[in-house]
């Protein structure tokens, strides 16, 4: 476990009463435990949820506490199991279906897009699908092409689905509780490298409202919007920039759909610059959506266009070997340089941020 005190401060704010420092993965577990105790209709299922490893610890002990009817594993049949979850949700239950990688959700697309997303509208409100689909973005240690994909924009594209990607322990618990209580299908996106990051989390149940962005650090020179694990990189960039007197405002949208453009635009109006860092490919992605919305809003309100830029995965399949994988992802230093150039002009060269201390990326060792 690593604790990077500085980042946690930036990440979760100072300690408030009734909170303590716990890991992202334990915050999730707490959300399940509290919500399952509160509402007997909530149940959790998926591959490996009841084995001794318990989805990186996030489901450990739940079967002992709530029984095999409410916490159970399934065969490797993601497509059908997604339909099963939807059916139970329509019947009034609140299933949480778990996948250990986002890549495997491609097997669930028919059910999620054609049934979960459509039912409430298509049947004119007669049915609801209060479903949570938990899924994890993988990274590093050779996860490679099929264990590292971040496909949130595919889900953002489809009306009827909500998409949330909390980047710290506090939001992990609060968003999970909100997702479980929501009457719509919610795609809940976690990240393997966030699991061991710690944050101050209230002991009591609380909901972080879906559709509300979070300003993590205030600054007047540039707005950096970052998604999921890239929030950590954006916070590293912010520190690099601070050292040369550039103040970045870092915003985590938290919910990717519905998107809180009000918070983002309030910041952009102040800074005049918007740098969007997605934890995904750029084409037709969350970054396309956020930058387009920013332009549209500026046009509608007849305000001057901010400087716009975006970064994300290289437009390739993710390679496994470390030297290429390092080039595949943006990091705190490349983000800082991009921000610096947006402020000082493209020709401004010669600034290179120092190499970061050991991060959660270096600390992560497989085998998975």
């Amino acid at each position: 476990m690593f604790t990077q005190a500085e980042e946690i401060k930036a990440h979760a704010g100072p300690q408030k009463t009734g909170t303590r420092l716990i890991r992202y993965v334990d915050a999730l577990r707490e959300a399940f435990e509290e919500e399952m105790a509160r509402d007997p209709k909530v149940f959790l299922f998926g591959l490996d949820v009841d084995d001794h490893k318990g989805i990186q610890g996030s489901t450990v002990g739940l079967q002992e506490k709530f029984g095999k009817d409410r916490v159970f594993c399934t065969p490797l049949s993601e497509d059908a199991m997604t339909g099963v979850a939807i059916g139970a949700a329509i019947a009034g239950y609140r299933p949480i279906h778990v996948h250990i990688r986002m890549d495997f959700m491609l097997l669930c697309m028919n059910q999620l897009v054609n049934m979960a997303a459509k039912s409430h509208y298509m049947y004119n409100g007669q049915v609801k699908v209060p479903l949570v689909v938990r899924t994890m973005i993988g990274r590093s240690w050779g996860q490679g092409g099929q264990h590292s994909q971040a496909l949130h924009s595919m889900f953002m594209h489809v009306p009827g689905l909500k998409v949330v990607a909390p980047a710290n322990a506090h939001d992990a618990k609060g968003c999970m509780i909100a997702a479980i209580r929501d009457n719509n299908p919610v795609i809940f996106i976690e990240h393997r490298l966030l699991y061991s990051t710690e944050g101050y989390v209230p002991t009591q149940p609380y909901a972080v409202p879906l559709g509300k962005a979070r300003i993590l650090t205030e600054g007047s020179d540039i707005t950096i919007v970052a998604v999921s694990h890239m929030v950590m990189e954006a916070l590293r960039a912010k520190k690099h920039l601070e050292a040369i007197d550039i103040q970045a405002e870092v915003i985590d949208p938290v919910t990717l759909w519905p998107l809180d453009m009000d918070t983002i635009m309030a910041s952009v109006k102040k800074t005049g610059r918007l740098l969007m860092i997605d934890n995904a490919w750029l084409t037709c992605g969350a970054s396309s959506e956020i930058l387009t919305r920013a332009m549209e809003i500026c046009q509608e309100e007849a305000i001057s266009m901010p400087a716009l830029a975006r970064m994300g995965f290289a437009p390739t399949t993710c390679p496994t070997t470390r030297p290429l994988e390092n080039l595949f992802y943006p990091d705190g230093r490349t983000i800082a340089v991009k921000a610096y150039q947006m402020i000082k002009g493209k020709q401004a060269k010669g600034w290179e941020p120092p190499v970061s201390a050991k991060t959660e990326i270096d600390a992560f060792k497989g085998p998975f």
Partner: protein
Amino acid sequence: MTDQIVVARLYKTMLLIRQLELRIAEIYHTDAIKSPVHLSVGQESIAVGVCDPLEKDDIVSNTYRCHATYIAKGGDLFGMMAELYGKSTGCAGGKAGSMHLVDIKNGVMGASAVVGTTIPVATGYALAMQNEAKMTGRQRVVVALCGDGGTEEGCFYESINFAALRKLPIIFICENNRLAIHTPLEKRWATNQLCERMSTFGIQTHKIDDADVFKIRDTMINALAEIRHGTSGPIFIECATYRWLEHVGPLDDHYDDYRDKNTYQLWQDNDQISRLARMLDDQVRMEIEKEVTLTIAQIEKYAEESPYPAAEELYTHVYAS
């Protein structure tokens, strides 16, 4: 009396797989291999029994647990080890890692880490081989391997139905180690009559429940002959086996207590590698062991000394030219 040349050949390949994988496990802690490794230690007789009778231009498709079949099919060993090390000389230039070994020249189709996904792809390859044979007069065969977990995906049944319908030249092999990660069969299957289920598609099925490498090989020899002569379409073979190490990674995880140690003992007593060793005379056996040790040292050195891919490699092969 089984032919000593065959025994020696099977022993050599099985020992190579076992020793190489144990070596991978041994050096894993050095972080030279930054790749999730799904080792086949204990399951080698299936890969070798299945692949030994294949021709070089026959095709195998496998899963992320692919080292054994890659080696047994004749995949390039230097390319394999360098791939695990993430080096430019790897069988996929360092882009694939342990879970996606590929060697098209030697008939290794390219492994997938999404369970079940290669089963229909292998079926498609067999469709092409069926058409090709109409022109060449020579029937190449595809072998599609999956685990017991793989049979739970819809595409498994959909593929077998299609293969049976079109009488495709494909042999489906289920390596049944009764575990999907840590979850036992009893928590995943309503009944364990897998062969019976498959036979309702009107295809030949075989169940080998002791991992006997000769039984597996003989079953394959007969199956291949029938398919090549066009007297049979797809054939399904279920092979029982036991995974000695953890699902992914270098360790023996029996201390985690999710499986029965007596069963492990039974499978160790039934170890096909020790069995073959006992069938060989000492001289031959020691020769083979020396050769295997030397091979492993050579490929390890090659992997260590090979360079990492250059930065521009990130952008090669995004699209075919």
